[in-house]
């Protein structure tokens, strides 16, 4: 697993990183997004959406499991925290999203590790000691995402 870390000093900057990050994504990319409550996951996802040319408001899909947006690439934003059983992912037809034509972002991915694709990029947002400071840790699994990390080094 390769890794890359970026520090941000405000929610706005976290969003900006998401936006820059989006330009490196392709149809079928899988992003596992984690971090504690209030750490800025939605801000990052919003930035990512803006980077894909999506102008709609981005809200957390906590109660709806998935939000779908249309942009340069479609964005499938999952939050699987409220899932009772991984089988329920089958009921919503997750394969159409994970192996589809868009960018898939999954929050709380550890709840569905049985069905995660072989390769993906994890984005972990960590609180630093100082208020409002965040360390965003990117880690890759699979060579396509390792190549993506190399490009991220330029950010």
């Amino acid at each position, binding site marked *: 697993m390769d890794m890359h870390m970026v520090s941000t000093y405000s929610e706005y900057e976290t969003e900006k990183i998401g936006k820059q990050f989006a330009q490196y994504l392709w149809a079928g990319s899988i992003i596992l997004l984690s971090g504690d409550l209030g750490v800025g996951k939605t801000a990052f996802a919003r930035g990512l959406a803006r980077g894909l040319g999506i102008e709609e408001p981005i809200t957390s899909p906590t109660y709806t499991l998935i939000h779908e947006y*249309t942009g340069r690439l479609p964005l499938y934003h999952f939050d699987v925290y409220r899932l009772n059983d991984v*089988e329920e992912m*089958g*009921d*919503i*037809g997750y*394969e*159409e999203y994970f*192996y*589809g034509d868009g960018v898939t972002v999954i929050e709380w991915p550890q709840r569905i590790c*049985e069905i995660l694709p072989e390769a993906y990029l994890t984005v972990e947002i960590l609180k630093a000691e100082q208020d409002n400071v965040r360390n965003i840790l990117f880690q890759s699994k699979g060579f396509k995402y390792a190549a993506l990390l190399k490009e991220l080094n330029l950010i």
Partner: protein
Amino acid sequence: MRVLAIDSSTSVAAIAIAENDHLIYEIYVNRDKTHSQKLMSMVESALTHAELTLQDIDVFGVAHGPGSFTGLRIGVAAIKAFCHATGKPAVAVNTLDALGFNIPYFSGIVCPIMDARREQVYTATYIWKNGCLMRQSEYMVLHIQEYMKFLEQKQGPILFVGDGVPLYGVQFQKYLGDRVLLAPFTCRMQQASSIAFLTLQDVQKGKVTDYNFLAPFYLRRPQAEREYEKRMEK
């Protein structure tokens, strides 16, 4: 007996209106999957062009699966709404049966193949006998390699139809040889006229459904099988 039929099970959105043995209207759009935005206005324009209102429809037919989960939900929900509003019955038509019906009177095996992602297809095998389409297998979701081995046992020409053709047609041809034929785009994809025809056929057999019991037919591998496969991968 007038039928309005919808198929939104794939990237195609299709609508047809038929009356007894007469196709009045048919439309097919295969452009981005935006069924939820397009379907209602397509129905509206279908009725307008056919000079009918929703009240003039006697039965509603829908391709209820297998297919894209989202697409199936959109089609089934739309038909439920029409039935609820008009008090008319519904008919659920299997998407694979309807695709088989796109290829009338073929003398070999008709194989509808629909993309189920990860090199899997939704499929079943059919033959035509005495003018009737007869299903010869279960409705299946199979990896294309498994399906090739399955079809290798069968004799005679095999015709593939469905959105799996551009994805896997050539691979089937390479494996099974020149007895494989691929449907041209004129009849390859979902046609709502096939749904309409099969709906009327079901009405004659009395196979109409109360819309409350209408549900998408999601075809999935049994859980045990998927778990086994996952273990084997590791």
